[in-house]
Each structure stands twice: as structure tokens, then as C-alpha cells.
């Protein structure tokens, strides 16, 4: 006969008493595990929601980025770098700069490590009388974009016009009934029509684009340009002031102005959308954190209350058990069973209650969310300990019970 066998037989004999103790511990452990499981489930759900929102935002921003690139390609550039001595009133009145600057400025900008602008397009633009056709046109010499070093490869917004070729604005090719492959004569040069632009409703409709070097030669401005078109970087904190400061540092003899308001509006809308998305994600994260805080606060009140209630209940049950078993304790003591063995009989029973309650409570608790091995280990160790602590006082009463009093009463 061992103490453990005695405990096992007594548990089987007083099933209701054991069950009442186990139920109390199941409730306490279940609440505790459910609290942790809920928080864990909440965290998993939060991470899922935020990851999905971030992915959705990324996809939307990528889509917008592409759309923006296409829009910008359609609408042109939004920053214009002009010679510093160019009178802007005159520029706006004439639609082009009368002053020129060295073409080399574009290369200098490209190799300067500038970050506030992208897509540099040097150009020479003049309004001239087309002698062969007797009409006023704008000639625009372009050489293709100058790649910015260290800025990563970007698809050009505007492709170059090959030497000996021309791209015609809508009004020109429509009124002269020209199409790709036709030849035109301009200031004594023969150019092949490469592309015919769609209608834009701007001065582009009366523009002929040609190779920059050919335009420079034709207009008598060899090695000169009168504008560098650029695209403002859509990065946080980049405004015109910053761009102007950077350009002034690199090209002291140039000035920058902003134009193409439609493109800017769309770019700002995109930035706003990106900002809104960020705010929405942050707001969701805050809401989820708030909800988590509420669950924690609720648990911080409920769980200790339930644990204390459980401990009191187990203590009272143990006390009742000690009272019920007074005679048994007396007879065991009379037969030489030691105090510490009596203590062990009652604490062992409390521990068994705690262990059974821990396992059932854990199983019940993880219905609320995912469990973990660490949590299981904690409750398997903690619940029996709680039950033992709760049953300690009654067990001490039992161990110190005077057998003579009980046997004499009998």
C-alpha cells in the first residue's frame, strides 16, 4: 500500500468531490488559456489583416506608379530647367526660352547624383516660320533622355527622334495630309516622317520634333540648348524649393520652374492615395492594438479573479475533505502513519485535481484560439501548484490533527 494508491482509491471513491475541484480548476485554467489564446489569435489575425492591407496598398501603388508613369509619359515632364538669365515673363509669353545654355549642363546634372529630379531631356526649341510650307511652327530638337547615374534604370518618358527623321504634331500632319514614311522639307533639310502624334490640344500640335544636333545646326545654336525637361521625383519631402536648391548648387547658371499642372495634380493625388493608405494601415494597426489592449485589460481583471476564486474553492473543498476524513486521519495516525504522509495524502489529491484541471482546462481554452507548448507546460506546472497552495492549509490541519481527540470522541 502506498500513499499514491490511497489517493487514487479515494479519488475514485469521492468522484463528485474530485469533479467539483477539477471543474473549478478547469474554469480557471480555461479562462487563463483562453485569454492567451485569444491574444494569440488576435495577433495572428492582426498580422494577417495588416499584411493583406499592405500587400493591397503595394499592389495599388504599383498600379498607380505604372499609371502615373503612363500619364506622365502622355503629359510630358513637370520641371523645366532654363538658363538663369531667361526672363520668365518672356518665356511664358513666347512659350519657349530665348536664352540658351550649354548642352553639357544635362550631362553635368546626370552625373551629379541629383535625387530630386529624374528623366532629363535636353532640348532646343524655337518658333520659326516654315519657309517651305509658309506657316509658323515650333521646332524642337531632342536627343533622347540623359540617364541619371545611380538612379536605377528607368523607362524613358520620351524616345529620341533618329537623325534624318521627324515626329509631326497633329495639326501639321492633319493639315498637310502627311503620314509616317512621307518626306518633308524644312529649312532646306529633308526629313523622313517617323511618327504622327495624336491630337493634344496644345502647342505640341504645331511642333516638329527632330534630332537635337540637326536642330542645333539648323537653328544656328551648335552645342546649345534652351531647356532641360525633367520629372520631379515622387519621393516624400521633395518640393520645388528642394529641387531649386539642388539645381542651383549643381548648375549655378540655371533656374528651375514647375509646369504641367494636370500631371502635378495627378501626382499629388497619387501621393495622397499613398498617404491615405499609410494612414489607413496605421489606423487599422491602432484599432487592433486598442482591441488587444481591451482584451488584455479584461483578462487582467477576470483571470486573477477566477484564479483566486478557484483557489478559495479548492481550499474549501480540501477543508471539507479533511473534516469528512477526520476519523480516517485518526486511524491512520494511530497505525503509525506519519504527519508528513498525511500531508502528502491531501496535497497529492490537490495536485491530482490541479493536473486533471490543467489538461481539461487547456483543451477547453484552446477552443478560443491557438495554444502553444509553452502555455501547456506552464498550466501543467502551474495548476497543480495552485491547487497544492490552495490545499496547503487544510492539509496542514489534517497533518496536525490529534488522533486521540477523534478516537476519544468515537
Amino acid at each position: 500500500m502506498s500513499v499514491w494508491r490511497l489517493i487514487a482509491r479515494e479519488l475514485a471513491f469521492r468522484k463528485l468531490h474530485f469533479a467539483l475541484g477539477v471543474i473549478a480548476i478547469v474554469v480557471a485554467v480555461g479562462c487563463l488559456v483562453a485569454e492567451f489564446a485569444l491574444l494569440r489569435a488576435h495577433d495572428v489575425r492582426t498580422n494577417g489583416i495588416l499584411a493583406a492591407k499592405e500587400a493591397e496598398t503595394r499592389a495599388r501603388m504599383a498600379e498607380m506608379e505604372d499609371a502615373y508613369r503612363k500619364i506622365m509619359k502622355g503629359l510630358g515632364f513637370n520641371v523645366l530647367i532654363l538658363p538663369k538669365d531667361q526672363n520668365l515673363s518672356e518665356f511664358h509669353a513666347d512659350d519657349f526660352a530665348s536664352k540658351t545654355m550649354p548642352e553639357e549642363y544635362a550631362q553635368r546634372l546626370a552625373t551629379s547624383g541629383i535625387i530630386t529630379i529624374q528623366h532629363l531631356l535636353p532640348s532646343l526649341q524655337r518658333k520659326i516660320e516654315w519657309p517651305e510650307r509658309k506657316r509658323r511652327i515650333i521646332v524642337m530638337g531632342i536627343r533622347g533622355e540623359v540617364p541619371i547615374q545611380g538612379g536605377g534604370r528607368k523607362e524613358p518618358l520620351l524616345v529620341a527622334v533618329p537623325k534624318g527623321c521627324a515626329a509631326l504634331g497633329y495639326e501639321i500632319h492633319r493639315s498637310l495630309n502627311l503620314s509616317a514614311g512621307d518626306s518633308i522639307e524644312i529649312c532646306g533639310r529633308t526629313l523622313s516622317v517617323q511618327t504622327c502624334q495624336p491630337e493634344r490640344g496644345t502647342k505640341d500640335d504645331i511642333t516638329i520634333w527632330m534630332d537635337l544636333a540637326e536642330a542645333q545646326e539648323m537653328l544656328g545654336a551648335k552645342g546649345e540648348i534652351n531647356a532641360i525637361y525633367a520629372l520631379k521625383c515622387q519621393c516624400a519631402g521633395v518640393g520645388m524649393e528642394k529641387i531649386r536648391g539642388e539645381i542651383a548648387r549643381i548648375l549655378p547658371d540655371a533656374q528651375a520652374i514647375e509646369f504641367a499642372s494636370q500631371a502635378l495634380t495627378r501626382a499629388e493625388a497619387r501621393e495622397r492615395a499613398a498617404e491615405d493608405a499609410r494612414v489607413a494601415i496605421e489606423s487599422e494597426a491602432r484599432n487592433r492594438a486598442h482591441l488587444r489592449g481591451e482584451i488584455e485589460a479584461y483578462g487582467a481583471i477576470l483571470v486573477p479573479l477566477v484564479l483566486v476564486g478557484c483557489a478559495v474553492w479548492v481550499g474549501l473543498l480540501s477543508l471539507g475533505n479533511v473534516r469528512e476524513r477526520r476519523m480516517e486521519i485518526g486511524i491512520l495516525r494511530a497505525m503509525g502513519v506519519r504527519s508528513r504522509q498525511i500531508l502528502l495524502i491531501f496535497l497529492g489529491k490537490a495536485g491530482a485535481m490541479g493536473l486533471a484541471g490543467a489538461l481539461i482546462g487547456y483543451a477547453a481554452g484552446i477552443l478560443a484560439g491557438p495554444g502553444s507548448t509553452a502555455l501547456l507546460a506552464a498550466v501543467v506546472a502551474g495548476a497543480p501548484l495552485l491547487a497544492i497552495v490552495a490545499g496547503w492549509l487544510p492539509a496542514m490541519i489534517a497533518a496536525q490533527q490529534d488522533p486521540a481527540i477523534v478516537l476519544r470522541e468515537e
Partner: protein
Amino acid sequence: MLDLADVRKTYARPEGAIVALGGISISAEPGEFIAVRGPSGCGKTTLLLAAGGLLAPDAGRVIVDGEEIYALSPEDRARIRATRIGFVFQQFHLIPYLGALENVLVPSLGVPRRDAMTRARELIDRFGLAPRAHHVPAELSTGERQRTALARALFNRPKLLLADEPTGNLDEANAEVVLRALAEFAGEGGTVLLVTHGGNAASYATRVISMKEGLLCSGD
């Protein structure tokens, strides 16, 4: 084997002190079966508990098998009870959730022994309880319960058997079985101290002592 020398015990009660033992001296040798008779409340049970190391007297000495038991620590006293003293009570005091065999094995909690199961089965057989070995006390007759209690008391081969009205709840036939077993125990060299208010036990005792109001009246 058992020496009680001027043992005194007084219970303090709100209504006044009650003298349970007023200076009792008894000496019992191995092989003696002493029956202590007296009316209820005369101090018989107090005498038995004091002799069994369960109730420290206010004065006097209790010597069991050469050891003055109240001079020992509680743990040593528990060891003496486990190894040298057996108890039998009127109410049997069997453990309600253990079968007869397991009840007989209970003393092995205090003194683990290798031959525990063999010894328990031997006693179960000796007292005719084999068919009821796995029945809990509630399923046993009163006679079977007392025989189980007797088997439990003899489990550790004690030298002293203390019996408190062991036949009080039994019919004549079962009482005979119990008393005969106690007499056999004494016959094998054990010492029996039995307290009773009836007269049946006297016919098996080697000595009968009468008690009244905490004092011995006569002996033979």
C-alpha cells in the same frame, strides 16, 4: 511489556475538570490478556489511548516494550505504534474506500515491508475473509468488518494489542471469533489490553480489572 505507572489525566471542561485517570498503574507481561471493565465514562478509552501513545497523560509513565513512549518524539512514537502496537475499535474504523485486503494493508503505509501482500492475504485467509477480500466495508457484515479490523491490527505482528469494546457491535458468534483471536494472540506471547463494559470478554482474559471514575477498583 506494558507498564503504566501512576498515570493521571484530567480533561478541562467549561463545567469543571473531569478526572479521567486518577493515578492508574497496570503492568502487563507478554502472554497476558487483560480485560478492563467499567461503565461508560469511567476513563477506559482514555486509558487505552494513553497506553497506545495517542494521548499524553498529565502525569505518570507509560512504558511499552521497554520504551517510555511519551519521552520519545512524535515521530518515534508513531514508529512504536506502527511496529509494536495494534488497535481494534468498537466502530472498526475501516477506510471506507478500500477493500478488506487493502484495509489490512494500511499499516504498511507507516512501515513498508516486502512481504506486505503475503502477510495481508495470510490474515485475510486466517479470518475467513478471502471471498470478501475486495469488498469495501459498506459491503461487509459487521462481523466481517471487525475481523478485517482485527487482521489490520495484527498486520505488523505487534507485541501489544489494544482493543476498545471490540465486540460491542457484534452478535455472539462474531464476538466469540474476535475474543478467541485475541486470546490466541495472547497465547502466542502477545499482550492484550481490552476495555469493555460487558462481561463476555472476561471469560477469555487472564486478568480482569474494574475501573470506576478513573480509578482501578479491583483485579484478579
